[in-house]
């Protein structure tokens, strides 16, 4: 039995250079090992773990992936200092002298004690808050006390409080889910030798835990035994890495047979780390020699046990030490472009603030200097204090100091010029926007049952300004669901796959019918050839071809029950969709992979059951670009089956054999890839007894080698894979996702340039480009695929001159498409040619990059990002897209077939490529529009108020007092006017979804910064100065000769400003629903109530002022006049521009209104129905 041979140790790692591999490059060619290269580029080493999927390997596999821990150089035994000692079934001894972390988990950020300091610390990372804190501190200096201490800290306390409540609530929810999690129970071996339930949080390292089918694993455990006699267990790691297929894990033979209670021994394992695909340990089992343990022997917390009745394992990492917990990483933090622009205007406002303060200071200084001698004569100044025995100055420090104090006092008084509530408002608005994006049913993926995810909460508005979309191909544009389409066997093309048998091929086992879960259309001619109807040579060749497909893979067949008791479905589980497709194809042609056990596979060959011993398996790696398997056939021969990418395979075939076939195969391959199919070449060789022996000893030496194991294995594989006889080639179709061509067309109309970056070969990339309408027949294609710097340079220059010639041709110019491959990019990126590429690429309408490595993808994104202000978006699904996703301004992960690193690195995640259209065109547009308006409005709102205070200063001898009661002043920006803008920022829509989808061009408003720019800011500020003048001077002039008191006039001013800014907002609201009504009018009412309450406190000087004021007609007339006079300029300007210089958005609004586009059926519009514009 294979398992007894030391060389079959599954942890024996072959090598593979995991970094910088273009996943898709070999995915398209060597389906079986596509996943091998799914590595995170080295740039993102920590946040995303390297994907190492050795786990679903059969026991007999001759090697698994080198784990990251090994990569780190610890191929030798773990040093005792770096090891964790786990005494199996002896938690007391294990936890001495140091107790390991218990199994309770804590995903919360705060505890009750640390909440306040930690949350405040985090919040004060925002410079604006530090500014407000300093001002509040300054205000406590008696000479500078403009506000009462309580009032001065209230606004800051309020915004900090709202944020803290929000953070606290989120943390409380995490806390609750932690508690539920910690109190779940698991079966733990008790001293009596039986398994008893124990709460998860009480599980200790060293304890033996039993898990039954479909249960979730409570901690990271080394497998001791499973219900399967060979020690196999299957786990689903969907919670860990998002992959839904089953992974195979193994218990060591040494422990498999031991009854659980008599397990003993010592496991030395590495210290906890975050690499979920690496594990390095050794076990001393009593009575056996030391065995080494690898990633395939550990099952991780968060996984679910599947298809296995039970497993017994010993806890090695618990609680916070588990890999899933170590991998919890926060969402990436980015800053949106709007916010960056906003900071520019905040600085402008700060300058304006300083200017106002300087004006006041200078005037105050001049006044003090002029009146220096009479200060004591002014009853309202009274410099001297006579109440003491000696005459003293009262609160007076000389003209110089008083002037300096004036400056600080004015800063304190005018501090709200910097809108304190803006930051918290933006947070809340983004939260609301995220809610609506997540809840959008048009972005819910029915197939994978995933809804939209917002991982980054601070770049929502960037979605409305995207200029470049960089898209991965496989899994992003396509479904990554592979279908076997055609084959070339022996140089003959069989692509007439028709509807064969409806149910596909099936076999009978013990009276039961087993049928592959997916049927594949078969080509009758090829079928005939397999059956022998076309002569013996064709029959042998085609049989070998399908035998190769059925054996040369790592697929695990799993039987699934159906309602019919006699019918079972065979589900081929594996990591590579290409491999699955090939095995299903083989099954359809009569080569049904039935069972995979530790050392052999069982194949039903045209009704005859055959057992193949899997003697060795050479993993895929990026240098070889192929994988191979060595099997012992039932007839005693040893065969090597190889499959791999065409260029790598044609290098290792026997040169002078079957030249016609090779030539014909090449032709076929070319036509397949022109159809957009993913191609693979299959070859084989029989090994002689001598060769096999030589190989075997080398292989055993290599697998037991302690140093350089991977390299050795690679060499052995390369030595074995030579002189192959070509069997044929396969063409697999990766279907385009639904709605991709329409989505690309929409984005193109929206002025978004779509660049496709793929690892596929050029022909495949171009054909996919055509099928998704990225390329059209009228386009002029510029292809750059060179092997040297010089030719790259030449081609770039040619392209540049061509594009300028075309541009000169005027309106009739045909669009340009640039197609460039990874080899050329090597010579271009990060050299002086980069600039030329940029010039050419930006004039092209479409750019297709093929055969690019992950880091090159990031390089291309950087090419645009570093040279323009345009916003970039990268979308991808695989690990090879991570670097590009992180590089782009907005990163989107497709939560599809390929695991979750792309999602983990992304800012947003969704199920389908076509959701980009509603995401950008609808939500992006809305978010941008809303946020832009909200920021401008917040600036305006606070500035109006500050200017009112400023004008009043001129009538108080520059003594920095405000007529508005200080409580109203501090409540102004946080209560009186905050809510409506937040509500409008969340709910308002300038255009309906339907219009935005019908006219994708409307998206360009965001690209042009139409809703937020310096011009608008200046316009708003001018408006704001006019409004402040209206608010201040109308009452001033009206009450010039009256007996009005400070508080009464102050109340009029505050009410006027609150009503005016709310009316201003109301005028700009596009859509009035009941929530908008409630918030705007409610806010005005709330302000009136607040003012009334403040004026009902006898302690304050303004007692009853509002009632007295409201009792006079003058008050109401003033209010009305202020509102009308304040709004007239803005209203007139708005009416004028909307009618005579309408923006596209404005015209679309009119269209909506007058063409009744917006019937009640908006929500029923299927997303795939995009209208072509008239």
């Amino acid at each position, binding site marked *: 039995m294979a398992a007894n041979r030391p060389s079959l140790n599954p942890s024996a790692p072959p090598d593979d250079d995991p970094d910088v591999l273009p996943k898709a490059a070999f995915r398209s060619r060597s389906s079986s090992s596509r996943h091998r290269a799914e590595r995170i580029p080295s740039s993102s080493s920590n946040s995303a773990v390297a994907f190492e999927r050795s786990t679903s390997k059969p026991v007999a596999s001759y090697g698994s992936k080198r784990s990251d821990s090994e990569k780190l150089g610890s191929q030798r035994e773990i040093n005792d200092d770096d090891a964790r000692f786990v005494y199996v079934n002896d938690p007391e001894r294990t936890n001495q002298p140091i107790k390991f972390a218990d199994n309770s988990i804590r995903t919360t950020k705060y505890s009750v004690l640390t909440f306040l300091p930690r949350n405040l610390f985090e919040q004060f990372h925002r410079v604006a808050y530090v500014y407000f804190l300093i001002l509040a501190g300054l205000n406590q200096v008696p000479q500078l006390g403009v506000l009462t201490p309580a009032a001065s800290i209230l606004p800051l306390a309020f915004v900090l409080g709202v944020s803290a409540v929000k953070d606290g609530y989120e943390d409380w929810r*995490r806390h609750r*889910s932690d508690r539920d999690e910690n109190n779940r129970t698991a079966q733990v071996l008790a001293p009596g030798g039986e398994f008893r339930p124990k709460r998860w949080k009480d599980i200790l390292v060293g304890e033996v835990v039993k898990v039954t089918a*479909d249960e*979730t694993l409570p901690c990271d455990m080394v497998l001791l035994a499973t219900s399967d006699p060979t020690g196999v267990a299957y786990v689903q790691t969907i*919670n860990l890495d998002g992959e839904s297929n089953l992974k195979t894990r193994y218990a060591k033979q040494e422990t498999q047979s031991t009854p659980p209670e008599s397990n003993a021994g010592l496991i030395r394992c590495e210290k906890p780390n975050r690499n979920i695909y690496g594990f390095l340990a050794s076990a001393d089992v009593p009575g056996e020699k030391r065995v080494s343990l690898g990633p395939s022997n550990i099952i991780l917390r*968060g996984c679910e046990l599947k298809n296995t009745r039970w497993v017994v394992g010993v806890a090695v990492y618990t609680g916070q030490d588990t890999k899933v*917990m170590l991998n919890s990483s926060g969402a990436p933090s980015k800053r949106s472009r709007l916010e960056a622009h906003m900071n520019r205007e905040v600085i402008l406002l700060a300058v304006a603030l300083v200017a106002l303060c300087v004006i006041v200071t200078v005037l105050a200084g001049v006044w003090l200097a002029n009146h220096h001698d*009479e200060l004591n*004569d*002014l009853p*309202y*100044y009274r410099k001297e204090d*006579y*109440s003491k025995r000696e005459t003293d100055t009262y609160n007076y420090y000389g003209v110089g100091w008083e002037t300096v104090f004036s400056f600080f006092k004015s800063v304190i008084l005018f501090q709200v010029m910097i809108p304190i509530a803006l930051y918290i408002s933006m947070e809340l608005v983004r939260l609301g926007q995220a809610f609506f994006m997540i*809840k*959008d049913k048009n972005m*819910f993926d029915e197939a994978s*049952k995933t*809804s939209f995810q917002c991982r980054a909460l601070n770049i929502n508005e960037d979605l409305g300004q995207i200029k470049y979309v960089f898209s991965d191909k496989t899994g992003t544009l396509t479904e990554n669901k592979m279908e076997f389409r055609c084959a070339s066997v022996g140089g003959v093309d069989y692509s007439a796959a028709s509807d064969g048998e409806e149910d596909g091929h099936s076999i009978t086992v013990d009276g039961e019918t087993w049928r592959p879960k997916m049927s594949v259309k078969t080509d009758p001619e090829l079928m005939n050839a397999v059956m022998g109807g076309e002569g013996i040579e064709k029959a042998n060749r085609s049989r070998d071809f399908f035998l190769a497909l059925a054996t040369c893979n790592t697929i695990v067949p799993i039987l699934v029950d159906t309602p019919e008791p006699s019918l079972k479905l065979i589900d081929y589980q594996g990591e590579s969709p290409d491999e699955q497709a090939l095995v299903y194809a083989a099954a359809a042609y009569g080569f049904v992979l039935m069972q995979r056990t530790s050392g052999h596979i069982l194949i039903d060959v045209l009704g005859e059951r055959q057992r193949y011993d899997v003697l060795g398996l050479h993993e895929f790696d990026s240098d070889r670009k192929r994988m191979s398997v060595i099997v012992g056939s039932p007839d005693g021969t040893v065969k090597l089956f190889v499959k791999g990418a065409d260029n790598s395979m044609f290098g290792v075939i026997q040169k002078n054999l079957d030249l016609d076939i090779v030539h014909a195969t090449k032709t076929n391959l070319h036509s397949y890839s022109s159809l957009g199919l993913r191609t693979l070449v299959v070859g084989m060789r029989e090994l002689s007894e001598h060769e096999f022996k030589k190989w075997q000893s080398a292989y055993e030496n290599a697998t037991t080698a302690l140093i350089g194991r991977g390299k050795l294995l690679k060499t052995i594989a390369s030595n074995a894979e030579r002189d192959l006889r070509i069997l044929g080639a396969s063409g697999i179709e990766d279907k385009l996702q639904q709605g991709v061509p329409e989505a690309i067309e929409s984005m193109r109309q929206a*002025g978004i340039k779509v660049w496709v970056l793929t690892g596929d070969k050029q022909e495949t990339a171009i054909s996919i480009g055509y099928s998704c309408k990225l390329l059209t027949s009228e386009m002029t294609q510029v292809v750059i695929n060179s092997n040297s710097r010089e030719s790259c340079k030449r081609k770039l220059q040619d392209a540049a001159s061509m594009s300028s010639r075309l541009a000169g041709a005027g309106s009739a110019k045909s669009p340009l498409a640039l197609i460039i491959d990874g080899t050329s990019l090597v010579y271009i990126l990060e050299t002086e040619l980069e600039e030329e590429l940029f010039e050419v690429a930006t004039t092209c309408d479409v750019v297709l990059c093929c055969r690019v490595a992950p880091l090159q993808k990031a390089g291309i994104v950087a090419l645009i990002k570093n040279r323009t202000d345009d916003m970039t978006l990268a979308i991808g699904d695989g690990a090879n897209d991570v670097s590009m996703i992180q590089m782009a301004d907005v990163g989107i992960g497709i939560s599809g077939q390929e695991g979750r690193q792309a999602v983990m690195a992304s800012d947003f995640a969704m199920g389908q490529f076509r959701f980009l259209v509603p995401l950008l065109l609808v939500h992006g547009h809305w978010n941008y529009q809303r946020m832009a308006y909200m920021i401008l409005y917040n600036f305006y709102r606070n500035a109006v108020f500050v200017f009112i205070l400023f004008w009043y200063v001129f*009538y*108080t*001898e520059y*003594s920095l*007092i405000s*007529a508005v009661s200080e409580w109203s002043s501090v409540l102004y920006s946080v209560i009186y006017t905050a809510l409506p803008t937040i509500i409008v920022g969340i709910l308002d829509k300038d255009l309906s979804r339907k219009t935005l989808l019908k006219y994708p061009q409307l998206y360009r408003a965001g690209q042009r910064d139409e809703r937020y720019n310096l011009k608008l800011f200046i316009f708003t500020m001018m408006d704001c100065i006019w409004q402040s003048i209206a608010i201040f001077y109308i009452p001033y002039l*009206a*009450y*010039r*000769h*009256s*007996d*009005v008191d*400070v508080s*009464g*006039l102050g109340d009029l001013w505050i009410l006027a400003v609150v009503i005016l800014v709310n009316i201003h907002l109301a005028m700009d609201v596009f859509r*009035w*629903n009941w929530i*908008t009504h409630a918030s705007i009018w409610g806010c005005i009412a709330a302000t009136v109530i607040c003012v009334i309450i403040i004026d009902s406190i*006898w302690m*304050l*000087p303004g*007692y*009853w002022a509002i009632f007295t004021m409201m009792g*006079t*007609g*003058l008050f109401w*007339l003033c209010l009305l006049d202020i509102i009308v*006079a304040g709004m*007239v300029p803005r209203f007139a300007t708005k*009416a004028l521009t*909307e*009618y*005579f210089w309408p923006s*596209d958005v404005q015209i679309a*609004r009119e269209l*909506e209104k007058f*063409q009744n586009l917006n019937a009640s059926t908006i*929500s029923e519009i299927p997303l795939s129905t995009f209208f072509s*514009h008239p």
Partner: protein
Amino acid sequence: MNPRGDSTSGSDGAPEPRRKSKKPKYSRFTQQELPACKPLLTPAIVVTTFAFIGIIFIPIGLLSLSASEQVVEIVYQYDTDCIPEQLQNDKVAFIQSSKTNKTCTRTLTVPKNMEGPVHIYYELDNFYQNHRRYVKSRSDKQLRSKASETVTTNCAPEATTSDGSVIVPCGLIAWSLFNDTYSFAVNSKIIEVNKKNIAWQSDKEHKFGSDVYPKNFQMGGLIGGAKLNASIPLSEQEDLIVWMRTAALPRFRKLYGRIETNLAANEQITVTIQNNYNTYSFEGKKNLVLSTTSWIGGKNDFLGTAYLTVGSLCLFLAIGFIILYLLKPRTLGDPSYLSWNRNPDGHY
């Protein structure tokens, strides 16, 4: 055994957000399709709005002006006038001296019939009752109750006398209480001045205590203004209460009293002014104002003018917009105005 449903909670908060999410339930709210009204500034609405405002504002303006017109106001500036000729050069010395005769009698002519009650105001100018140092120098607690008599925190420099005893009412505001007095006579017949209820009822009831009596007031080294009768509680010291409603602007009026009778046109009123209050050291003006009231308060031409201006501006805008709309009409919602339709060859 754990049901499958909660098995994913193992990774809540861990790197993996809940993956199997439920399909969002359709609701008009979550899909942002709440029924809504979409106002649009169509020419009709713009013109109607402006015209409407004009039509409303112009009558209001006219009404205000006529109301203001009906108010009869006599303003008499006496600060310079009431100083004897020979002392004009040293007004401060005049006012600070205790020996000079500060009584000043003048005759005012009633221009029109004044229906009672006629309000008597004094109007000060260049007096910054809203100055920070001044406004803060008071103790509302002390004013309200006897128990808080010693609360004089903010009252400096008029919190205590030089021997440390508490001043009630403390603070600069009370200290500088206005102390000119007026009396009126028509044809040698004294006109009664009603000084009751010149302060706000709310102030008398809640802000100034009926058990708080003036104490040590104006006993310091510097006399700021009026003295108070120590036997009358603060709640009945209405002049003080009026004075302590600090004015919003440097030129302000304060109610002095009312004449309940009518004054006939061309009547000669003899005013006897006790010119005690020192505004000379800071060039403050003092006016005596007799005024009737209307629904817009005292005489106030500004508001009517403002309404007329805004109203006519709006009418003008309405007409302007009509002309513009006629001269350069545009079909609303015509797709051919969309930028990409106007300029199809442009950057696509």
